[in-house]
């Protein structure tokens, strides 16, 4: 997937991926640490708030409790008459704003001996303190909880809260303190009665309402029995207990919590509100004095609200930031890779053959700049190379064309029509000339000097190729010219004359080995001259084979030497003359062995009775091919075979 994408994309993608990963890891770590910190902090805060609330409420309870405790003390030490009691109590109730009412309830006969029961109740009404008597036959105060329990326990007790029917339906609680006979009395230490005060618990609600627990967090207050004294839902207040709710919601966790709180435990837990499904934290603690318990409910959502918001903001910022980063990286990557792109476009053009395609201008001295400059150099070198190549190829083609023409010219010089004299019955000739290169330095030639005489020559210019072919052309021209001019001269004279001409202006020291013969077709008289050439073979009519090696001179063009000698011989009809150049005898095979005269002679012996020059020539050529096989032709191969059939030739 990545293989075909641009550098720019890859760079951007990689950097971005790395950044995203790092950012994500950092953020996760940060979030989880923050969350834990917040939770710890919230927990501390909740505890703190809980305890603070407990303390402030406790303070009120305690200070309120002091009053009857003090009263109890007073009564223990002695208020003996009724009037004193009335006055005292009126003062107490009047001066203490918290107290709605107060009772002093005595054991039978404990106040005024003989008087069965005495329980005056003092309360505020319309701004005055009035009193009534609880000793009502229908009431039986001594059987009430507020009397019995502290009596049994021998210590002060807060009552369960209750609604005051008479006083406007507010929640009240009663604090009952037992008092005893004074030390110096006969019943010292014995239970004498109960002092109570009734206080409203409405201020509790106010305290709770003032609690700011995040958005919708709240506090609630349980009585000793688990009944809700304070709760955001007014229906619950004084109506339901925590156990009722737990029952209703089938919430075992809530029930357990209720038990803990009622037992006076404190703690911090996490739970789910069944009705709302919200997760909440709960901090709870007891009121030591009253046995009530406080619970503070903190919605988890709200607890972490700030963190959640912060997290969201950070994520948004991070995403925006990463997008911006991606944009910047993409831009930078594009800037960096743009030269590469342009370079690659330009070199693609060059690759297609547009060698002049302009390379991008890159000023920088970085790697790309250097690369571009290298490309420029390469481009220039390439252009020059192509230019040179074109020129060289054109020149070569021109030369090759010229060579082809030269080859044709050269081949045109040499007689190639066989049989050359179809009307004549006295002679038959066949020859081949195969240059090693396009043009060569070998030559053969034959022509009728007059009706009776045939001139034939073979030659080999030193070297190969164009220089040799030029020299060969000159030689051949000289031969024809001299032969025609000096019609009655013998070969020796003609060759001597040719040599003179060839020696002048021969700076290149070129020379040509040459053999020239004149055959009288009527008489069979053969005259010949050899200027450094391979001696030709004579295949006599009777089958003898000899080489004409007795006449010998320098090759032509070497130096102006003594006149050349002419050899003489008479041949019978049926005689064959085999002229060849050293391209035959020096033909090489792959093992660098030479064909040599021996092998040539062997072929001639096989054909000693063959009269056809064509057959003889081609057989020699065939034998050579069999010998050399794959090896390259190293020299010009030239052969000329003349069969003298004679003026009166008849088949024998």
């Amino acid at each position, binding site marked *: 997937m990545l293989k075909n994408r641009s550098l720019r994309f890859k760079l951007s993608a990689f950097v971005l991926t790395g950044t995203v990963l790092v950012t994500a890891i950092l953020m996760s770590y940060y979030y989880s640490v923050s969350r834990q910190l917040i939770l710890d902090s919230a927990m501390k805060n909740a505890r703190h708030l809980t305890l603070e609330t407990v303390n402030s409420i406790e303070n009120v309870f305690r200070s309120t409790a002091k009053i009857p405790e003090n009263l109890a003390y007073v009564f223990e030490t002695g208020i003996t008459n009724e009037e004193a009691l009335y006055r005292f109590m009126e003062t107490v109730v009047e001066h203490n704003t918290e107290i709605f009412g107060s009772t002093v309830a005595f054991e039978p006969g404990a106040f005024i001996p003989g008087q069965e029961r005495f329980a005056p109740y003092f309360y505020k009404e319309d701004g005055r303190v009035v009193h009534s008597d609880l000793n009502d036959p229908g009431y039986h105060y001594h059987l009430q909880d507020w009397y019995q329990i502290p009596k049994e326990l021998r210590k002060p007790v807060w009552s369960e809260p209750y609604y005051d029917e008479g006083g406007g339906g507010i929640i009240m609680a009663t604090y009952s303190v037992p008092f005893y006979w004074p030390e110096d009395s006969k019943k010292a230490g014995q239970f004498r009665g109960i002092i109570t005060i009734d206080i409203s618990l409405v201020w509790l609600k106010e305290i709770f309402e003032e609690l700011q627990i995040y958005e919708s967090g709240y506090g609630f207050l349980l009585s000793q029995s688990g009944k809700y004294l304070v709760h955001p839902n007014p229906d619950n207040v004084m109506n339901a207990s925590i156990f009722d709710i737990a029952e209703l919601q089938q919430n075992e966790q809530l029930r357990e919590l209720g038990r803990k709180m009622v037992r006076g435990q404190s703690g911090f837990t996490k739970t789910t509100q069944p009705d709302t499904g919200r997760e909440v934290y709960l901090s709870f603690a007891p009121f030591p004095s009253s046995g009530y318990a406080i619970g503070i409910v903190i919605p988890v959502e709200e607890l972490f609200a700030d963190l959640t918001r912060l997290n969201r903001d950070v994520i948004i910022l991070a995403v925006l930031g990463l997008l911006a980063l991606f944009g910047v990286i993409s831009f930078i990557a594009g800037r960096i890779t743009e030269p590469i792109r342009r370079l690659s476009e330009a070199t693609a053009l060059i690759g297609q053959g547009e060698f002049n395609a302009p390379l991008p201008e890159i000023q920088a001295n970085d790697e790309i700049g250097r690369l571009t400059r290298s490309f420029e150099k390469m481009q220039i070198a390439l252009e020059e190379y192509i230019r040179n190549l074109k020129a060289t190829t054109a020149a070569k083609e021109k030369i090759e064309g010229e060579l082809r023409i030269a080859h044709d010219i050269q081949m045109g010089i040499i007689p190639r029509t066989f049989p050359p004299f179809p009307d004549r019955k006295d002679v038959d000739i066949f020859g081949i000339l195969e240059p090693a290169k396009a043009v060569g*330095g070998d030559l053969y030639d034959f022509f009728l000097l007059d009706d009776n005489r045939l001139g034939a020559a073979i030659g*080999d*210019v*030193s*070297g*190969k*190729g164009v220089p040799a072919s030029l020299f060969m052309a000159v030689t051949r021209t000289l031969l024809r010219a001299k032969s025609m001019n000096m019609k009655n001269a013998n070969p020796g004279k003609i060759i001597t004359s040719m040599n003179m001409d060839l020696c002048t202006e021969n700076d*290149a*020291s*070129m*020379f040509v*080995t040459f053999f020239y013969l004149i055959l009288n077709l009527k008489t069979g008289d053969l005259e010949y001259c050899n200027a*450094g*050439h*391979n*001696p030709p073979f004579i295949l006599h009519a009777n089958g003898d084979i000899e080489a004409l090696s007795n006449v*010998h*001179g*320098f*090759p032509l063009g*070497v*130096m102006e030497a003594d006149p050349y000698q002419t050899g003489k011989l008479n041949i019978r009809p049926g005689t064959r003359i085999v002229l060849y150049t*050293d391209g035959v005898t*020096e033909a090489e095979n792959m093992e660098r062995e030479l064909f040599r005269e021996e092998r040539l002679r062997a072929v001639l012996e096989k054909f000693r009775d063959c009269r056809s020059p064509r057959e003889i020539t081609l057989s020699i050529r065939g034998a050579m091919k069999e010998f050399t096989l794959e090896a390259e032709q190293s*020299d010009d191969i030239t052969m000329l075979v003349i069969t003298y059939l004679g003026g009166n030739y008849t088949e024998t």
Partner: protein
Amino acid sequence: MEIKTSLENGVMTIEIIGHLDTMTAPVYEKKMLELIAGNQQFIADCTQLDYISSGGLRVLLMTLKNVTNKGGKLVLCGLQEPVLEVFKICRFDNLFAMAADKQSALQQIIK
């Protein structure tokens, strides 16, 4: 084809090793022209010359001409059988001064 040269008593010896043909002739020719500029007496040691073609003959001829024109002397020595044959055909054995070996060649030059 390799060429080794040595100078002894004013005589420059050129040792021709390998094949002297149209391909290798230019190398020999260049060397030879250099040497001729400063020397007059030459020995061409052909002991290790395996093969000579007409192109090779040409440059030897050229050597002979150049040396002779300057009034100097050229002696060939140590010619092997195949090479000697070629010389004989062209009658170059009459043209060039030849010796069997380097010693005889030196003697010939001094004479």
